[in-house]
């Protein structure tokens, strides 16, 4: 069964003809070559596959393309072109958040999502905001610090 699915991807309207049950994660990585979004668990537990769908953070490994029709999707490739995205990325780089890096694009998406809701977040809000993103390298403290740094540097953006 195939359908044409039309949606906005990183600001651009695109259309794809595919099986509507195909996972959004596979479409992004393979059909569009956007490999910044990662697969690390395949069951929505780790957050490495996160993108923004209509401004809300979701895990793409469990989303069928049929549910994406008409939506706005922003991946790390889109977020990094925005001023907010650049502030977060720079803060992560300066703040020591990045070790192996595999969880980080998902963390950047989570940071954007949480700063959108709480532009001056407390530590508790930050920890809750990234609680769906697993990291095995950092123990989280420097990611939390980096998000705080991003909030400071990007005052007024969120």
């Amino acid at each position: 069964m195939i359908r044409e699915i039309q949606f906005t991807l990183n600001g651009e309207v695109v259309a794809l003809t595919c099986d509507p049950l195909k996972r959004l994660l596979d479409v992004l990585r393979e059909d569009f070559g956007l490999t910044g979004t990662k697969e690390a668990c395949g069951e929505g537990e780790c957050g490495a596959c996160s993108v923004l769908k209509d401004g809300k953070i979701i895990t793409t490994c469990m989303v069928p393309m049929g549910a994406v029709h008409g939506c706005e999707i922003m991946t790390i490739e889109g977020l990094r072109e925005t001023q907010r995205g650049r502030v977060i990325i720079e803060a992560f780089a300066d703040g020591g958040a990045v070790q192996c890096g595999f969880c980080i694009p998902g963390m950047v998406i989570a940071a954007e999502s949480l700063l959108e809701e709480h532009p001056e977040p407390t530590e508790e809000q930050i920890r809750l905001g990234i609680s769906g993103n697993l990291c095995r390298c950092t123990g989280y403290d420097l990611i939390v610090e980096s998000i705080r740094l991003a909030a400071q540097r990007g005052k007024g953006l969120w």
Partner: protein
Amino acid sequence: MVETCYIPKDLAEALRVRKETGAKPIAGGTDLMVVHRRGTGIVPRFPWPVMIITQLQELKGIHEEDGKISIYSGSTCHEIEASELVPYQVRKAASLMGAQSLRNLATIGGNVCNASPKGDLPVPLIMLDARVELISATGVRQLLLDDFITGPKTTALQDDELLSRIIIPKPEQPFTYLWYRKIGTRRANAISKLSMCAAVTLDLSGNIIDFRSANGASGPKVARSRSVEELIIGTSVDTLPDILPRVLDAYDGILSPHAMPQYRRSSTRRMLAYFLTEVGKRPAEQIIQ
């Protein structure tokens, strides 16, 4: 293997497809897309036809109607958590399901129809005597959620029906005290190992005019017993300590003997004892922590 996937444009079409093919609905996909996954780069495969209903506007919304709260089945956990119309314990249960990403996708319809014994939302809903409304191309019916879920992962949903909404009646009098605890596998992003909610209503003289308690992840279905609850109803809050042991024993009896016996039983016992003891102190706050 049948691989048909429908994407109906409105509820009428969805009901027609459901009647003609029995296609199973996928809303958030957070259970079904994971259970049926086959690996990276491979389309999930279902052994029956499915239809994607994420887009149906008629299944969205949270409203108050005739003193009851209607949560339409396509409402996400995030929407439920954020809505001030929804009772506290249902919001709390929604807020603790999975992580933010899951809460933006997972729907109440999916959680209820999946009927996992570890499901979070049915616990407070059943405690609140919630009803489900089921619609088909030929009609509408309602039943108690506790009757709709018949066992682990089984419901009374007919092959031509869709779950339209959950209806939560308002209690005759607002609850005086509320309790909700979920013990997860960790502090966030956790599957429930045990969840429990309870509520008590006192009159001005301190008589208990309503008491309810429900347990999740404690057996094949949400555990709740009106007859156990009635052991307390009618008594005074001051006599609670005397009847507490009997109540705790009776409540223990409704938990499944197979469900991790020691840990769940003893935690439940301690939580219920704590809640009722705190109630006995008649604190000012409604939510017992």
